[in-house]
């Protein structure tokens, strides 16, 4: 929508952006948020550009590797965030505030799905096996560059990890994913999940302990 007209290339050289938006690319989040609070469409777009990649990755992992659902949830999270942008007081950074909305959006969707699954248990029982197969096939292939044995091993490990993660309690799973798969700091995770740092550490350690036991075969170097 805002990409019409001449384009320029941003500092990273990755995304062609509208020429009129180019000066805004160097702005910090708080300045962009201030502009967005005054309904500046360019500010909205730059914020989306800045965080869509990471947001999509988080949503993708949280909804067990469903690309379409991840995209929908990312979009919903952006809309929720922008519609309540006037409530953002700047006490935390924009991205932790936004990721909090994203994580809550994903958890809401996951809970909704689980509710429906409980309702249609019989129907799901028949589909269960094929679903998990679809999910594994949808995950990016971890061993594309390596030999077939490594690829097979990688797929098997991915499946076991997915199953182990699914059995973790919600908070432990979210904390573990944000830490290990997305490399966030415990302080940031605490802000995102709305818990104390000590609680986050506790969740992380419990999850690590559980996965270490569940994935015994993959622990030995």
């Amino acid at each position, binding site marked *: 929508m805002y990409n019409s007209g001449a384009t320029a290339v941003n500092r990273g050289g990755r995304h062609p952006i509208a020429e009129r938006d180019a000066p805004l690319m160097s702005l910090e989040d708080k300045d962009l948020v201030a502009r967005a609070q005054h309904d500046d469409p360019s500010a909205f777009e730059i914020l989306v550009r800045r965080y869509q990649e990471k947001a999509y990755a988080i949503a993708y992992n949280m909804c067990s590797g469903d690309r379409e659902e991840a*995209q929908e949830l990312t979009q919903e999270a952006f809309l929720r965030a922008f*519609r309540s942008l006037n409530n953002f007081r700047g006490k935390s950074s924009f991205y932790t505030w936004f990721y909090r909305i994203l994580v809550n959006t994903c958890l809401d969707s996951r809970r909704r799905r689980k509710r429906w699954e409980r309702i249609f248990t019989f129907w799901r029982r028949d589909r269960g096996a094929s679903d998990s197969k679809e999910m594994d096939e949808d995950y990016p292939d971890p061993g594309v560059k390596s030999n077939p044995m490594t690829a097979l091993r990688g797929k098997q490990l991915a499946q076991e*990890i997915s199953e182990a993660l699914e059995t973790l309690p919600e908070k432990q799973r979210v904390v573990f994913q944000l830490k290990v798969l*997305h490399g966030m700091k415990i302080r940031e995770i605490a802000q995102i999940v709305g818990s104390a740092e000590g609680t986050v550490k506790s969740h*992380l350690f419990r999850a690590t302990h559980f996965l270490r036991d569940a994935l015994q075969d993959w622990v*030995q170097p």
Partner: protein
Amino acid sequence: MKNCRHWQETLWLEVYGELGPEEQLKWENHLSTCEACLQERKRLIHLLENIKESMPEPSISRESARALRTAVSEKLGEKHHRGWWHPFLAGYIKPLHVAAVCGMLVVAFGWFGIRGIQHARTVKIASDAGVEEKMIVNNIDILENLDLLEEMETLEKLDQVMGRKNATI
């Protein structure tokens, strides 16, 4: 590691890159003397590397990214421009919904409407009764002494009759 339970939290923090500089120094000193902790550290790092490798961070395609930005922009734009009629024309409210709401209104009016009218009537009667009660309260002295008043009236009449008779005599 079995003998170093109190180092476990430090080990995990170090593996996750969350250890402070002072603790890091102490931990390194301990590692240089403890083979069990060293092995446990290797195992944990190996496991986490395996997990990261088997679940690589997915990247959104350029087309999907553009579609996402467009969708967000359009939906935000819609919010600013749409009026009160938007739900009707945008198709959120379908004829079926309108028919369902109308049906519910008819049922609700049919059930509560008559009772509502009856209720209004009883209210009116009650309010009239209230006025009468107020009048009774105001004139209670008169009503209580009604017999006395009637007697006084009879006496007055008798007095008048007697007065006329005396005048004629």
